[in-house]
């Protein structure tokens, strides 16, 4: 069986004369939870948007392959075909209307809807499953504008799960959440990867990234400067050069702990 992969090859992207991405190569394979890390402005969001097909790079290609489409250009997929395989969770997604949780989650089924037909049995099952794994069943009738930040983020992730994508690209899914909800979100993403999905998430919390991700990709000024296991990527040298910080890095049995100490001038 073909594995599902999403691969960016020599992607470059400039905006207003600034080079945002410089020859970035990144391949995401199913079963992986990959953390995309780097300081603000390193190009994480741009890379995610380009890999999600929402932004065209200036040069380079994105390939998406699975059982049915071996090594096919992402641009050659129809929007609907792409959305059935690949989902994108934007950094800030604020619902415009006070919808109910289950209706918002149901929006994730859009790539599977057939014209002129209602919700299918499969739609209902997928929504139910998404609510179940994100533990939102008790909140299903709640109005999304009354949810806490953590609950809302979980609802938006449930929206992504409802579409049954194989690949999830998430832009800072745990920013602005309390530790409990950060852990919950990371667990859900890791679970998705364990069950044969692939996740690429832009992250700022290095300790959580190291703890949950099977692989980290470090972006610095549009270039990928390190790509590998957390322990190989999060070296004191990398942290100093890329983030400009001196940090305390401790490798323990249950993961890597990073405590930033001071700025390096």
């Amino acid at each position, binding site marked *: 069986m073909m594995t599902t992969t999403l691969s960016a090859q020599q992607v470059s992207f400039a905006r207003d004369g600034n080079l945002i991405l410089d020859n970035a190569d990144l391949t995401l394979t199913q079963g992986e939870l990959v953390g995309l890390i780097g300081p603000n402005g390193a190009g994480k969001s741009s890379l995610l948007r380009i890999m*999600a*097909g*929402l932004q065209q790079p200036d040069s380079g290609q994105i390939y998406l392959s699975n059982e049915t489409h071996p090594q096919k250009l992402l641009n050659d997929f*129809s*929007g*609907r*075909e*792409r*959305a*059935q395989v690949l*989902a*994108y969770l*934007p950094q800030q*997604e*604020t*619902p*415009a*209307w*006070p*919808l*109910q949780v289950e*209706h*918002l989650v149901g*929006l*994730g089924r*859009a*790539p599977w*809807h057939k*014209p002129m037909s209602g919700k299918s049995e499969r739609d209902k099952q997928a929504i139910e499953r998404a609510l179940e794994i994100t533990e939102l069943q008790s909140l299903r009738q709640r*109005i999304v*504008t*009354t949810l806490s930040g953590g609950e809302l983020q979980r609802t*938006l992730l449930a*929206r992504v799960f409802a*579409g049954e994508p194989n690949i999830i690209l998430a832009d800072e899914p745990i920013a602005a959440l309390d530790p409990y909800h950060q852990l919950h979100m990371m667990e859900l993403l890791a679970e998705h990867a364990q069950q044969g999905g692939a996740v690429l998430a832009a992250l700022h919390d290095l300790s959580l990234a190291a703890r949950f991700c099977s692989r980290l990709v470090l972006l610095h000024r549009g270039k990928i400067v390190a790509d590998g296991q957390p322990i190989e990527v999060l070296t004191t040298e990398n942290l100093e050069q890329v983030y400009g910080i001196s940090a305390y890095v401790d490798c323990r049995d249950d993961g890597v702990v990073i405590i930033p100490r001071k700025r390096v001038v």
Partner: protein
Amino acid sequence: MLQINISFPQVVIILFIAIIAAAALALNSGAADIPVLQSFADIWSGEQSLGATILGQIRIPRLLLAIIVGATLGMAGAAMQGLLRNPLADPGVLGVTSGAAFGAVCVLYFGAAATAWYWLPSAAIIGALLSLVLVYLLAGLHSSMLALILAGVAMSAITGALIAVALNFAPSLYAMQEIVFWLMGSLANRHWDHVSIALPLAIIGWLLMLSRSRFLDALSLGEESTRSLGFNNHRERGILLFGIAIGVGACVAVSGSIGFIGLIVPHLLRPFVGYRPGRLMFASALGGALLLVLADILVRQFDSARELKLGVVTSLLGGPFFLLLILKTRSRWA
């Protein structure tokens, strides 16, 4: 947040029943006192009674137009609010109606309308489409209230100026008066001709708008999300805007500009459909039809030489409502 637990079919059935009741009332109201049931029987049997003529040639077309125009304006309001993600959007407030009215005025009073039937609706639709695209360019980039209000102000200024030009060059004082009255919006003295112009175009508009229900639902999450969900935003938006323009243009061509229906109705019905933009379009069509039929009944109660214009009544209702909405949504004005 007001949340009312009622199923969608229930909402639809209640609105349907209300429309039928209002329609019965509408057929009973008018200057002449006619036996409605008897007149129906006369129409059925082909008898040329006075009642049959009044009912068949005056009241039924007027009622149908109220339903068509109300439904279209209601649905168009819901569609615009969904598209702009903004509860203050409305074809009237944002100058789409006046754009259409300007197009219609041009052909009505400068000759072309008489040469072929399609000039009037075409000009109105083009006027609606142009102003709609302008509004979208001005307000569509941000979903902020301020951008929308400013777009509305700009559009009012533009269409106001254009209509002033039309008045300025009106061929006669009489024509000028005609234009002013026509702009106020009314359903009086309309015939089956008007129905046959408005209905087919309105239906096309409805179908185009309703076919994009799913897109509007998904758009609750923002444009980036709809794209990532596989929608082709340009295409979906284009179809919606076209549907709104055809519907509003066709209505304005037969009724003049009747404002605020598209603002009031979706706002009132939103809690009943769980705030879902797709369903809101259908519900607002029914609600719009109901409101306009009722308003048209109200208009006919003031029986005088000078007819109270329907558009004036809806504006009197809608203006304060608009103000209230602005006050209510003040907190979102960033």
